[in-house]
């Protein structure tokens, strides 16, 4: 995302990040009504914490959406989350950059990242799911986020 280091109003922040927040919430909960509630709560909670920059707000609100969605996801959402569409979207801008960055990860890194971020699993559960030692899972998560950041930075996407 492009960092705009001046705080905005809630309306401006929603216009910038609301659609993406909803998309994330639906992908995890599998339920549009729950996703709406999660997004609304996340925005008001993050707004209440105070906004120092739009980029900081983006990071905080997405974390709040993900956490709220994880707490409220349905069985459908749980199933769908494991079918997370990492690397399947051919979008533009940030989407394309993220998709490209994810495609550059190794299979082990990508799987661990999907299970952690969209599946909400801990390292032990990921290790069990992927039949890998826990240190390998930690190393893959570490490499995945670092490589993701590196590729996004190279493509001029401010993280």
């Amino acid at each position, binding site marked *: 995302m492009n960092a705009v280091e001046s705080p905005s109003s809630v309306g401006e922040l929603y216009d910038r990040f609301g659609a993406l927040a909803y998309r994330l919430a639906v992908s995890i909960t599998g339920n549009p009504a729950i996703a*709406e509630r999660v997004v609304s709560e996340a925005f008001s909670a993050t707004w209440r914490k105070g906004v120092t920059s739009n980029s900081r707000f983006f990071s905080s609100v997405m974390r709040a959406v993900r956490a709220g969605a994880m707490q409220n996801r349905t069985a459908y959402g749980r199933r769908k989350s494991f079918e997370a569409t990492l690397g399947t979207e051919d979008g533009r801008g940030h989407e394309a950059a*993220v998709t490209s960055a994810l495609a550059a990860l190794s299979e082990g890194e990508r799987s661990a*990242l999907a299970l952690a971020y969209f599946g909400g699993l801990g390292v032990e559960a990921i290790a069990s799911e992927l039949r890998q030692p826990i240190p390998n899972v930690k*190393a893959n998560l570490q490499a995945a986020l670092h490589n993701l950041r590196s590729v996004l930075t190279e493509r001029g996407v401010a993280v």
Partner: protein
Amino acid sequence: MTHEPWMGSAAAYALGSLEGEDRAAFEKHLAECATCRAEVQELQETAAMLAYAAPPAHAPGALRDRVLRESRDVRPLVRTSRVRLFPTVAWLAAAASLTLAVLTGVELRGERGERAKLALALDSVRAELGARDSTIAAFFGPEVHVVSLSPTGEKPSMRVFWNHTRNIFIVTAFNVPRAPAGKTYQLWAIAKNKAPMSMGTFNTDANGRLTAIIPVGNVINDAGFIDLCGLTMEPEGGSSQPTEQPRLVGSWRHTD
């Protein structure tokens, strides 16, 4: 500070995948390691970008109105730039000035030995000022919020500062009797419709005082905000949930 052995846990922590003792140990390390705090912050920002990998979904138009309506009555928490810590700063500054003044007098008398001793004392005061400056700086900044805790109807005996930039709580206590052997104090974050979340454990000194820095855990960060803080006494090591009613309680201050 050695942080290399911990770096392997930073991503798992940033993704909320570090659990149990691993998580507790890492959070303890975070309290003391600025390098790892910065690493976690960066990784959390990177992880937020993964939202772009979620499947497409069209947000209903009514959601914007709902967000605006529910945020309308929410005011960002007050900045703590108004908190007055000048007495501490003034005392330290006065101590330094006094030492300088004494040092000048000694120089005039040509007592080199005494001058050297006082120079050392001055260095010590400067070092203490530097350390205090670092702590004091954590109380300020654009993303610091504060809560005062007190027994019902009495004056506050604790304050907790939440520095969002450094992702830490700074806990200050005064007149809080030291917890007996086998017991510890535990601070709880209480948010609407959520179970109390542990903010950390600590004990006060023999004078009932404490200044401590506690890293903010992912559970609390993910909760978005907390309405109240409560203090209980728990068995050594802390509890997963409070075992008694809060001895001290307070809500985040809302003043303009």
